[in-house]
């Protein structure tokens, strides 16, 4: 199947875009949304667009949300397109999530853990009842309470398990990771490449795949070892300086899923981890990513590869919503020539079958 180039209808296209602009603005009697309002009050939409657009810039993501009229996949598409116009200065040092300035940190495996559990600004434990007080505008919430802080470190839960030898350690490595934005995906894809694809993958797709592993499509017995969200410092080594400098702080969400591993001839039974890391506050995405990361490690851990979530090609070729929407939506483009030949073929078949 292929689409064909068409000419004409420029005026119709202009008129359609003018109407789009009018619809985007909505009722001109109402105040226009500012980027600061979108960034501040639709922060999780902005974070999702940054994660799936694979470009951290809250202001640009807010602009994309506004331009896309709240269509977050379209917004991620806009952000991806914009990033191609910018030069690449280099790569950061890996962010140190162990040193995160924590705003949220929870564990479902340990009730008490060093540093404690911190709920942060979460939807958890809300009643999920529509709050009509928000419909009445003009209210400013009371400032959130503050409490004395202690300087207790918040070590990773996976580190606690590793100390006992119960958690497979991550082999130390400084191997330069391959970059999906610079070279096409090929298989088998090593874990760093998979994690890049998952980090920019569609939240809905990864959520469903992660869910499928819990329901039996892939042998998963996951526990949330830890979720943490907060600010990490980004360090970058400019070539002209030759030493790393701090270039800013970004908010990320990290999820460590702890999974059973039965052991093998050479290894005792121990836990293994699935890992999720996303830009911004994106807990559902980080959890789904961690589930899928662990499922994709099946082959490496000697487990049978039977379920969709364990299939590298299936997951990695289909998790990118910008690619997916491009291919699905291209069906809207003119396929007149193709369809003519299909029409002729089906008429011929019907004649041969004696139907006409």
């Amino acid at each position, binding site marked *: 199947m292929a689409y064909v180039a068409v000419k004409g209808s420029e005026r119709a296209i202009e008129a359609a875009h003018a109407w789009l602009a009018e619809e985007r603005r909505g009722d001109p009697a109402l105040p226009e949304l500012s980027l600061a309002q979108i960034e501040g009050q639709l922060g999780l939409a902005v974070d999702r667009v940054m994660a799936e657009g*694979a*470009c951290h810039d809250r202001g640009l993501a807010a602009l994309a949300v506004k331009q896309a009229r709240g269509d977050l996949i379209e917004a991620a598409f806009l952000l991806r397109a914009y990033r191609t116009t910018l030069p690449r200065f280099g790569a950061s040092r890996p962010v140190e999530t162990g040193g995160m300035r924590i*705003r949220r940190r929870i564990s479902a495996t340990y009730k008490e853990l060093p540093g404690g559990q911190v709920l942060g600004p979460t939807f958890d434990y809300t009643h999920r009842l529509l709050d009509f007080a928000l419909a009445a505008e003009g209210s400013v919430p009371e400032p959130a309470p*503050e409490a004395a802080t202690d300087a207790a470190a918040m070590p990773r839960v996976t580190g606690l398990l590793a100390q006992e030898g119960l958690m497979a350690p991550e082999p130390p490595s400084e191997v330069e990771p391959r970059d999906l934005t610079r070279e096409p995906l090929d298989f088998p894809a090593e874990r760093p490449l998979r994690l890049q694809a998952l980090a920019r993958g569609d939240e809905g797709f990864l959520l469903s795949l992660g869910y499928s592993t819990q329901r039996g499509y892939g042998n998963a017995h996951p526990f949330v070892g830890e979720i943490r969200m907060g600010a990490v410092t980004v360090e*970058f080594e400019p070539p002209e300086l030759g030493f790393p400098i701090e270039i800013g702080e970004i908010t990320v969400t990290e999820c460590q899923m702890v999974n059973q591993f039965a052991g093998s001839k050479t290894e005792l039974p121990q836990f293994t981890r699935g890992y999720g890391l*996303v830009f911004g506050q994106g807990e559902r995405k980080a959890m789904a990513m961690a589930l899928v990361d662990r499922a994709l490690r099946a082959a490496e851990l000697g487990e049978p590869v039977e379920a969709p979530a364990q299939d590298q090609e299936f997951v990695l070729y289909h998790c990118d919503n910008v690619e997916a929407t491009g291919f699905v939506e291209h069906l809207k483009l003119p396929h007149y020539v193709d369809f003519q030949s299909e029409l002729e073929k089906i008429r011929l078949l019907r004649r041969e079958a004696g139907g006409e």
Partner: protein
Amino acid sequence: MGVLARADADAIATRLADAPALPRHIRLRGPETGLVMTRGRQGGDGAPFNLGEMTVTRCSVRLADGAVGHAYVAGRDARQAELAAVLDAALQDPARRPVLLATVIEPLAEAQAAHAAREAAKAAATRVEFFTMATMR
């Protein structure tokens, strides 16, 4: 540089207004906005992977006295990057350094620390103690 990277242009300019005037500078490069690929580590502590890019603005300047300064700051604020580069150059001068640290860098660092402390205090207020029910498994 970390302090200047976390401060916006207005905050830097406000602090600079209290400092002795800086020498004139010329731009050697930029300010220009580009991307830095942000990396994480698999499992938090394993092999590096590419998490996604972030916008970064860089600038290099030379002061009238010959000192060269560089800045790379997250985001797209050209004025912030240029001010940071000028300060990077000026801070190399032992004669200017103490007063610039006292009037610009330290107040900015204090404001950032205060912001971080407020956030940490809010987080501390959400610290929980879960009790496991004896009848639950």
